């Protein structure tokens, strides 16, 4: 049995931007990303609820192999509600790399703040949040 042993990079990438939106697409010919409906707050009629979201992120100063992870956390309780795993390979440290993660409907159990945290090789790079507010 062979095992895929990867050497992960010690260089910490810089998270340049991260945004939550309704829809995100990539033009197949130009690789340009389009974000539709960028938001950081949602008004909810009734909890619990769920909502599909896309998260756009852009990193730079990355060099080598990275194990990427996005964690969707309820801030008040620290509960991990959803997550996405991926890998990043960058040969050019000066280049910037952007990507989109499409989440299925993520749970929004109650009013409060929810965070999308970005981790590379188990190092915390940054986060973005959405606030869920009860419609009154």
């Amino acid at each position, binding site marked *: 049995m062979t095992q895929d042993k990867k050497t992960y990079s010690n260089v*910490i*990438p*810089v*998270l340049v931007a991260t945004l939550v939106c309704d829809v995100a697409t*990539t033009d*197949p010919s130009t*690789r340009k990303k389009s974000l539709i409906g960028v938001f950081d707050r949602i008004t909810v009629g009734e*909890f*619990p609820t*769920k909502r599909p979201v896309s998260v756009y992120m852009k990193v730079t*100063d990355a060099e080598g192999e990275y194990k*990427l992870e996005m964690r969707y*956390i309820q*801030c*008040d*309780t*620290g*509960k*991990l*509600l*959803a*997550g*996405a*795993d*991926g*890998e*990043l*390979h*960058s*040969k*050019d440290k000066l*280049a910037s*790399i952007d*990507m*989109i*993660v*499409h*989440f*299925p*409907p*993520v*749970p929004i*159990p*109650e009013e409060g*703040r929810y*965070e999308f945290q970005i981790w*590379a090789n*188990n*190092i*915390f*790079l*940054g*986060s973005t*949040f959405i606030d869920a507010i009860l419609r009154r």
Partner: protein
Amino acid sequence: MPRTDIKVQIQKESQPLAPFRDEANNQYLIDALKGRNYHSQKIMTPDNILLGTLRDGRIRVITPIKVNFTREGKHVIAEAVELDEFGFGDNTSEAIVDLQRAITELYFNLDKERSRLGIDLKRIWDILQEKILKR
């Protein structure tokens, strides 16, 4: 805890993909939502993390900063053990942000006074220089 794993293979110059690895996982997420009591206030705090950012464009972290968490009542304390710095907040996220501010402030204060630091602060400044780079 429902967890949806989405395998994303991200390669530079290739189209990022985020297909659902398993539709059943998504259904599990929805089912769990329907049957779950989300009013439980059990607080989950990680024991420690490696911090790779200070949320300040003037500096960047080149070696991760070890952060330990402790909970005191309703508050979370984030401690950068090597730097003797603390951040406080109502949850882990707030404590991290507060710690990031504290470390940044420490860095620039020590940078300003670096010619006349005592032994302890000189030691802290040396550690900061190993971990943080001014742009």
